[in-house]
């Protein structure tokens, strides 16, 4: 687990391209389909609320951030691009 995490946390703020790649890989592994970084993941026919929580836990563990309070808003999770911005902002604030 350490080895897997280390690539993401070597730097204080992970490279946005790397975060995007990682989140897309996580989505694909969990849903067995590929996603566009801009697509609305929770629009009708999209992902479930349980999956939203899985993403939160995944991002918290991978990037050693804590997603709380007002950050649990939909805009931060609607698209992969939104999640990348959230990760970078929270890592910057650490």
């Amino acid at each position, binding site marked *: *687990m350490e080895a897997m995490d280390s690539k993401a946390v070597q730097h204080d703020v992970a490279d946005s391209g790397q975060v995007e790649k990682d989140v897309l890989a*996580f989505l694909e592994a*969990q*849903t*067995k*389909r590929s996603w566009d970084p801009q697509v609305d993941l*929770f629009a009708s026919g999209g*992902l*479930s*609320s*349980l*999956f*939203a*929580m*899985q*993403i*939160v*836990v*995944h991002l*918290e*563990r991978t990037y050693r951030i804590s997603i*709380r*309070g*007002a*950050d*649990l*808003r*939909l805009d931060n*999770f609607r698209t992969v691009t939104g999640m990348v911005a959230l990760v970078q902002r929270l890592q910057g604030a650490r």
Partner: protein
Amino acid sequence: MTDALTAARTMVTGLVGEQAEGWDRGGVLPRELLTKLGSAGYLCPQVPAAHGGLDWDSARTGRFTAHVGSLCSSLRSVMTSHGMAAWTVDRLGADGQRAALLARLTGGDLAAVAFSEPQAGSDLSAITTRIVRDGDSVVVTGTKSWSTAAAYADLIVVFGVLDDGGAGAVVVPATAPGVRVERIGDPLGCRAAGHADVHLDDVRVPAEHLLGGGGQFMPLLITTALAYGRMSVAWGCVGILRACLTAAGTHARTREQFGKPLGGHQLVARHLADLLVAERNATRACEHASLCWDEGSPDQVLATVLAKHVSATEAARGAAIAVQVLASAGTRDGTAVARAFRDAKCMEIIEGSNEMCQLLLADHVLAGE
């Protein structure tokens, strides 16, 4: 660290003593009991030490919850609701809110969560309670139903819809003008857990009571809050099964019919095996889910629903078996197995009914596992 768990178990065992039956029949827990456990941090053991909590992990909290559940499911239900309130404050609150509120929730004040409404049970997206921002305050209006522990609560965490369409959780003091807490008489199970309907009529509270400023994504808000409750219910069901196993085992060893102990009759012996399987199944499902929580694994989300579903159904099945083994001795209301029978049935309904859990588990399969 194990000593902390032993101390907690010993304290609760001493405080409950032989009183669970009386509390069940009377429908009330002594406030003093709840205050004592609350100020020791035992009603929400996962609160971080920085906020006055015990900082326990999910595994230890679970083992403790099972112990409380084996003694009295009403008390365990209060723990579940209070613990969910603390968890919600911890996840949603800004730093200042966490500091102020968690100190109260580990200091003897009691809290409850209020999700359900007359028209929003399993479908919580239908919540209509309104939270309207108005200058330095927010105004809350709506009706919440079946809020566990609300009859004892000093603070009620109310989930609602904000004026801008987002969701929010607001901490409402039970004494605020416009709040009316109406205890539900004679619930089927967990009779002393203080279930109540909460009527909120233009309740004005300071804007700081809106956790994290509000505006969260409703499904995420609810899933997050419920996750803690599901773990708590799941471990509580393990406790129900352990109480049933003890009662049925003792009875089968000591009660004689046809010239030998009941356990010597194969059809009764099979009931004991079934009960043991139920208890072990539920324990393993809970241990796995707690491990996922403690490792921060995304698998915790599914494991939590699975644990809740396995434990609740096993408890309902196991409690029915225990009543069957005890027969007439188990049909007197208030006895451990009679309480288990009623309490376990309610656990198949609360925090996601069997059917809602099955839909969530099926969704996981349909999404490609």
